């Protein structure tokens, strides 16, 4: 009687043998192959699984923040051969046009230069401030997530503290701007954020586990991360609405 191959026995263990019925029948009849199968079964059932360490409760948030900063404006359109061909054809036409324009410019009789008035678009100051505040909240959010997710106190190193100091400086400016603009919600959030940033920036150079725990509990107890996320998202939505309603966008639509 021909015995089962090692491959047949292994695949049978996973239920993947080409002819399961035949393998089963053979195992029922052949004690040598059955013993071999049992040996394999015993070994594979005891292969320890790789235990995955918990990546932390803010893992999803951390992933999103890191991904978002690297996302292109929009997904790439599916490219076809014809689309690529059209692109090159267009490039060729443009090249011919530019070459023609170049030679025409060289040999055409010159005209005195004319002063042309251009109505440059004026940026809406409120929108500019909101964009900056949105960016500030995003960067602060990343820092807080990093601290909440860190494995140990080494996260509060010199670079992190310097980053917190930078954020603290801009935070003051935006807080004052928000107060002046009559936006108490943002002003209050920036006030809360500023206190935590100050705590991070001014932490001792040799941080203890307790220091890190204190900072984390401050972030958690104030629900700061959640607030930063919500307000940041609202600010970005406001910016988008302003962009859509801007005269330039209206003109473009017309």
């Amino acid at each position, binding site marked *: 009687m021909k015995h089962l191959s*090692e*491959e047949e026995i*292994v*695949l049978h*263990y*996973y239920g*993947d043998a080409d002819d399961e019925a035949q393998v089963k029948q053979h195992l029922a009849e052949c004690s040598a192959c059955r013993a071999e199968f*049992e*040996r*394999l*079964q*015993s*070994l*594979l*059932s*005891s*292969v*320890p*699984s*790789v*235990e*995955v*360490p918990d*990546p932390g409760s803010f*893992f*999803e*948030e*951390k*992933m*999103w923040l*890191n*991904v*978002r900063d*690297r*996302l*292109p*404006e*929009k*997904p*790439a*359109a*599916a490219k076809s051969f014809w689309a690529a061909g059209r692109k090159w054809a267009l490039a060729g036409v443009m090249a011919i046009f530019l070459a023609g324009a170049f030679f025409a410019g060289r040999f055409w009789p010159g005209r005195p230069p004319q002063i042309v008035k251009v109505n440059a678009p004026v940026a809406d100051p409120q929108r500019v401030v909101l964009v900056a505040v949105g960016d500030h909240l995003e960067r602060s959010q990343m820092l807080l997530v990093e601290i909440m997710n860190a*494995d*140990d106190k080494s996260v509060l190193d010199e670079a992190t503290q310097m980053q917190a100091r930078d954020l603290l400086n801009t935070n003051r400016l935006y807080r004052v701007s928000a107060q002046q603009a009559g936006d108490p919600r943002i002003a209050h959030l920036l006030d809360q954020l500023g206190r935590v940033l100050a705590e991070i920036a001014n932490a001792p150079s040799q941080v203890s586990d307790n220091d890190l725990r204190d900072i984390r509990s401050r972030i958690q107890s104030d629900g700061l991360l959640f607030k930063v996320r919500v307000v940041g*998202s609202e600010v*970005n939505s406001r910016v988008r609405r302003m962009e859509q309603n801007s005269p330039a966008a209206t003109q473009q639509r017309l």
Partner: protein
Amino acid sequence: MQVTDAAVVAQVLAGDRDAFRILVERHSRSLYHLVYRMTGSSEDSEEIVQDTFLRAFKALEKFELRSNFGTWVYRIATNRTLDFLKSKKMNDTQQYRIAEDPDPDDSREIQLAATAATPDRLAISEQMKSRMAQALSLLTPAERVAFTMRHMEGRSIDEISKTLNLKSSAAKNSVFRAVQKLRQQLEPFASPAK
């Protein structure tokens, strides 16, 4: 009611880039688990998961809304891991260690489940652990991915072959070779079956 993945994808394709966050939040943890089982490194796994989502976003136009986004992104992650393993040449036996109390600073260390064996079946001795680590390191990237998918994730041969773009027979062969190498390393140290 939870919005379906397909609806979220449609939202992103319609221009709502931030909606992609929902997909990242829904799938990043399971992808991290998958990738970690193959790389044994938290840092590398995070990097691969991020890269997976970036690729998924860029290729979102190609995603068919009738398909399962989870399966699609799982395939991207597996292929990214495979590329990573190939580039890192993970079959260097010095790269893996197995420990019960992993050193958080050492991203090359794998922690094994403490519930792996009952005392009367198999005692995982120190020697056995080091053999296991050595065996894992001996697997080629494709064998490691195929073994992880079949043995640890319970994925079918069909899924493995589709993910790795292999014929069914080649996927089976990768699983077999992985098991064969593990057997050669572990069997001398396993207690006889009862």
